[in-house]
């Protein structure tokens, strides 16, 4: 079987679909034109409001075998995906391809609809139970394709994925379908993931629980692309947005990693006026933000901008003047949503703006540095964020590939051990992000510098920081837990991991046993 540029065996086709092997982070030269939805028109004072969600589905012309899309701005509080899939089941529509940006533990009831054949294909991030279910193999007609934020936008915008009906959850909408996610009783943040769906889908249904008189502003999703508006009791629960660890960690190990990460970028001369950075919402990233804010105060420096996922910690830096502008693709708590409403320097952006490979500008390309996590890293600096060491497909890609390939210095932060499972491996179980776009790996045992960056190694040594090789740190951790068994993978592919340009960087195979 041919191997791609990170040495992974990629079959020529999967379920009849050809796969293009990954060639390098920026190797693909795009060709062709942008895709778009069908041309349509409307008469003045037409009525777009459907009597019910079920009516909207019926009127949309949704049939067996079609593709339905969703955004994940409500994260674990989403109520729309299940409502739509259940309505489809009632209407006798099946064999659907589900194309969400991401699924969360709240979507576990979808398992029944997969078993019943309502859903036969999924393309999108699967966080938790659906991923575990799919990992068992044999559940879907085609293996799921996982894409990064930018990768999904690209796939829609270039026609790689054709959406039949886009269902767009909006916390506020007007009768013509102007829709946003920052107003209304259940605000969830920018719903900008769905903008490209609205442009390109054959049919667009905005679903809201807060219908307001025309015009709803800001029109994140615009009326000109919306076929129907449906009103439901609740599209989502904002309490579910705050999943995972949106608090600064108290673990001394994680705090040490965060502090080392910040000292590393400072040693590289990147804590300076006009800098730009990205930090996510994981425990280590939040702690790193806090340390960074401290260093910025101490050195009197100001950042030009930061890219969210936004939390209250980043909002506080904006309000304090430490950060000039937040470019925000996703809100992770209520403070972030409020800030989006009131602060013009807190700017919502689309994945097209920050991450689309097929574009002439990604905000991530302007980043000086970024802190990212991972479930594993290997001696070639490849990072896995999708699977665990037991081979289970449990996480989406998020913006990992987009940010890592764009930032001047990409810093991966992770402990050497989670429980007794080592996180530095000879080879990662799955390559999500290739070592060629990773600069530093920071653990509690030191900082590994990618050999591509001797300049950084010199900076770090000069600052007296503990520069170690990944092999040294791996050995120190392995000594404490001995050698465990590794999963043995069969031939069945249960997931395809796309690089952001549409090539395949790895596939996830079904676990057959242990050795």
């Amino acid at each position, binding site marked *: 079987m041919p191997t791609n540029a990170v040495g992974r065996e990629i079959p020529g086709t999967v379920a009849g679909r050809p796969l293009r092997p990954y060639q390098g982070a920026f190797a693909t030269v795009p060709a062709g034109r942008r895709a778009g939805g069908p041309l349509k028109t409307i008469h003045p004072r037409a009525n777009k409001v459907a009597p019910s969600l079920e009516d909207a589905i019926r009127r949309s012309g949704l049939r067996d075998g079609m593709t339905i899309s969703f955004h994940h701005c409500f994260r674990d509080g989403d109520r729309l995906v299940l409502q739509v899939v259940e309505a489809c089941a009632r209407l006798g529509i099946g064999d659907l391809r589900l194309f969400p940006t991401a699924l969360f533990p709240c979507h576990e009831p979808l398992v029944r609809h997969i078993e019943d054949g309502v859903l036969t294909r999924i393309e999108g991030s699967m966080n938790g139970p659906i991923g575990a279910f799919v990992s068992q193999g044999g559940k879907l007609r085609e293996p799921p394709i996982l894409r990064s934020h930018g990768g999904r936008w690209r796939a829609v915008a270039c026609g790689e994925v054709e959406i039949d009906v886009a269902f767009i959850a909006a916390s506020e909408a007007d009768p013509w379908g102007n829709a946003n996610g920052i107003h209304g009783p259940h605000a969830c943040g920018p719903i900008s993931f769905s903008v490209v769906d609205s442009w390109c889908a054959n049919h667009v249904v905005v679903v809201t629980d807060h219908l307001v008189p025309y015009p709803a502003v800001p029109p994140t999703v615009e009326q000109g692309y919306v076929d129907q508006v449906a009103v439901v009791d609740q599209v989502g629960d904002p309490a579910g947005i705050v999943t995972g660890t949106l608090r600064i960690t108290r673990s001394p190990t994680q705090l040490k990693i965060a502090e080392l990460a910040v000292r590393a970028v400072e040693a590289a001369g990147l804590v300076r006026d006009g800098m730009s950075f990205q930090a996510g919402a994981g425990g280590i990233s939040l702690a790193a933000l806090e340390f960074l804010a401290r260093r910025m105060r101490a050195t009197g420096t100001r950042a030009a901008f930061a890219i969210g996922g936004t939390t209250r910690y980043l909002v506080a830096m904006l309000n304090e003047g430490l950060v000039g502008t937040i470019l925000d693709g996703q809100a992770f708590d209520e403070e972030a949503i409020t800030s989006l409403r009131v602060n013009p320097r807190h700017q919502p952006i689309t994945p097209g703006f920050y991450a689309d490979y097929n574009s002439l500008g990604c905000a991530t390309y302007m980043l000086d540095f970024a802190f990212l996590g991972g479930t594993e890293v290997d001696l070639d600096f490849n990072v896995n964020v999708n699977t665990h060491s037991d081979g289970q497909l449990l996480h989406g890609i998020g913006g990992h590939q987009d940010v890592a390939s764009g930032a001047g210095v990409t810093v991966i932060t992770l402990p050497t051990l989670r429980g007794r499972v080592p996180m530095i491996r000879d080879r990662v179980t799955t390559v999500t992000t290739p070592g060629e776009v990773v600069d530093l790996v920071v653990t509690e045992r030191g900082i590994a510098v990618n050999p591509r960056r001797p300049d950084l190694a010199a900076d770090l040594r000069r600052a007296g920081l503990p520069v170690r090789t990944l092999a040294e740190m791996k050995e120190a951790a392995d000594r404490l837990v001995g050698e465990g*068994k590794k999963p043995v993978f069969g031939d069945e592919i249960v997931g395809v991991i796309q690089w952001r340009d549409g090539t395949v960087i790895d596939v996830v195979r079904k676990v057959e046993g242990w050795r």
Partner: protein
Amino acid sequence: MRPSREALAGTEERSDALVRVRPGRGLAVSVRTRTGPMYEEHIASLVRDALNEYGVEGAHVEVEEAGAYDHVILARLEAALSRSVGSEEPFRSPLPPPDRPPTSRNRPRRTRLYVPGGNARLLAFADSLRPDCLLLDLEDAVAPSEKDSARFLVRRALATMGFEAPELWVRINPLNAGGADDIALVAAGHPHGICLPKAEDPSQVLALADLLSSVEGLYSVPWTLWIMPIIESPRGVLAAADIAGASERVVGLAFGAEDYTREVGAQRSWEALLWARSQLVASAKASGVQASDTVFPNVEDEEGLREEARRARELGFDGKGVIHPHQIAIVHDAFAPSAAEVAWARGVVEEAANEGRGVVAHEGQMIDRPVLERAKRILEQLPEGTDAD
């Protein structure tokens, strides 16, 4: 060796393991692990090997682990076995020696971080922390019923973990209350020194020194084990000078204010403890050893800690106890010489070097031997990685 009764050791907490030993026919090992098939066999064979090595027969062992490192599982197994056979004696064999450099007598000891010796999770955290002295505590941080299990864990942790802290200490229990058993086990892990709590009399130091001499040979400890007596009672404060001078092994005196305050009936304030602190510093310095201040108990109050550390340094202390990782940097910072002090010290040392033997002056101050010594001491206190330029 056969277990005579059912015994249990360890906890179900994260990073720990619960090990149950039951008398039974033959040897049986069962493992429940959070990571499924990944480590099941590895842990089972780890336990089997240990049972064979100790010559255990007729035992059924159950291990339930929640992310425990290998040495934690072994330590809990040893504790359960010793409880089951009613003796720690069979489990005092030497361990493969850790690869650990020696330390020098007068090295900086700005911080000594107390880590509860019985807590596997906190020990795991401690691996990557860098206080000047890491102090694995078998005394106040360990419940009486867990003392035995904790000393097995500290022994294994010392022998196995890398520990980034440059100097490793164990605070044992008082010699008449388990301290001798502590030493009989933990010396196999080659710590650098032993903290002796409730020191009130030089004879206690001498008794400890004797014990240390014997275990050093038994376990091939590649250095002389230091002693740091903790002075934490009125009697101790009054005897501090004799305690400091009792043995060549003593490298410093530590102050423990909690017990002292209670025993003299004082409130814990700077004024109430000022005499005891001064007495302790003078006693230590009279014997040429270091003085280390008591811990600052309120971990939330960073300003209070900074201020108390600053005053302790002013009084002549060389360091201070800490009880939380975030206190380390604050105390290191407080004990770092100021920029002005460093500049002065460099000037003095330079002048002295330029002028050879004669009496010289720096900024109008005559440089005699004590002044030069003080300047050199300041430069020695500079943290590692500080360039000389």
